[in-house]
């Protein structure tokens, strides 16, 4: 499934410079070093963190998309950074667990 296909399933767009990126697997975490150590490339990464370091971690760990759960918003300057760095960011209105369950259904 591609990142842009998630938009048809209740996820909303925050930054989508690479819409056709394929998602393989999911990782959930808010401690950035932990995420960098454990997340795989091409994962959808679910988090509630919304500072600028999230964009750097997504770039370096090569995740397919950052999904901000519980309607967490990204400040406008960070949205711009995400677009410049080619980082996909979507938003989900439900908590991380429910977001993951939904992704499980969509990705299987």
């Amino acid at each position: 499934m591609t990142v842009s296909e998630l938009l048809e399933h209740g996820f909303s767009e925050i930054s989508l410079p690479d819409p056709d990126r394929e998602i393989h697997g999911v990782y959930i975490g808010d401690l950035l070093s932990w995420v960098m150590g454990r997340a795989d490339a091409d994962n959808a990464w679910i988090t509630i963190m919304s500072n600028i370091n999230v964009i750097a971690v997504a770039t370096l760990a090569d995740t397919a998309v950052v999904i901000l759960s519980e309607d967490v918003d990204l400040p406008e300057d960070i949205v711009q950074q995400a677009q410049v760095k080619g980082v996909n960011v979507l938003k989900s209105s439900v908590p991380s667990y429910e977001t993951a369950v939904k992704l499980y259904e969509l990705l299987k």
Partner: protein
Amino acid sequence: MSEPLVFHFDVDGSDFTSAGTASVTVKKNLRQLGLPADVIRKLSIAMYEGEINMVIHANGGTADVIVTEQYIDIILKDQGPGIPDVNLAMQEGYSTATAQIHSLGFGAGMGLPNMKRYSDEMKIDTELGVGTTVSMRIWIR
């Protein structure tokens, strides 16, 4: 590519939000060189953790990346306080970072362990009150 390629960066210790600039730049440059994606990923994560460490603990420092045909070396050098107990610092979950650092999503005690995990060889030279140099090597093949 017979001569090694060298990238040098000054890591700004005062600005937490710009940490990662060097790693992201290196990643971009190495992609253009056509190096394998897994090598680039390992290198950029190891280097980013090092950058973050220098910002959190040492008020910045320098990062040098040397790219040869066989391997890539990353040399991170700071004039920070030094590491009193390297074995303790290498343990996953051990951290001396402040609450403010935690609120930014760092300080999980995973920095040095991640650097070891993602490099093939790692060496730490540290002296209290003088500084720390971390050297990492990642083999390309």
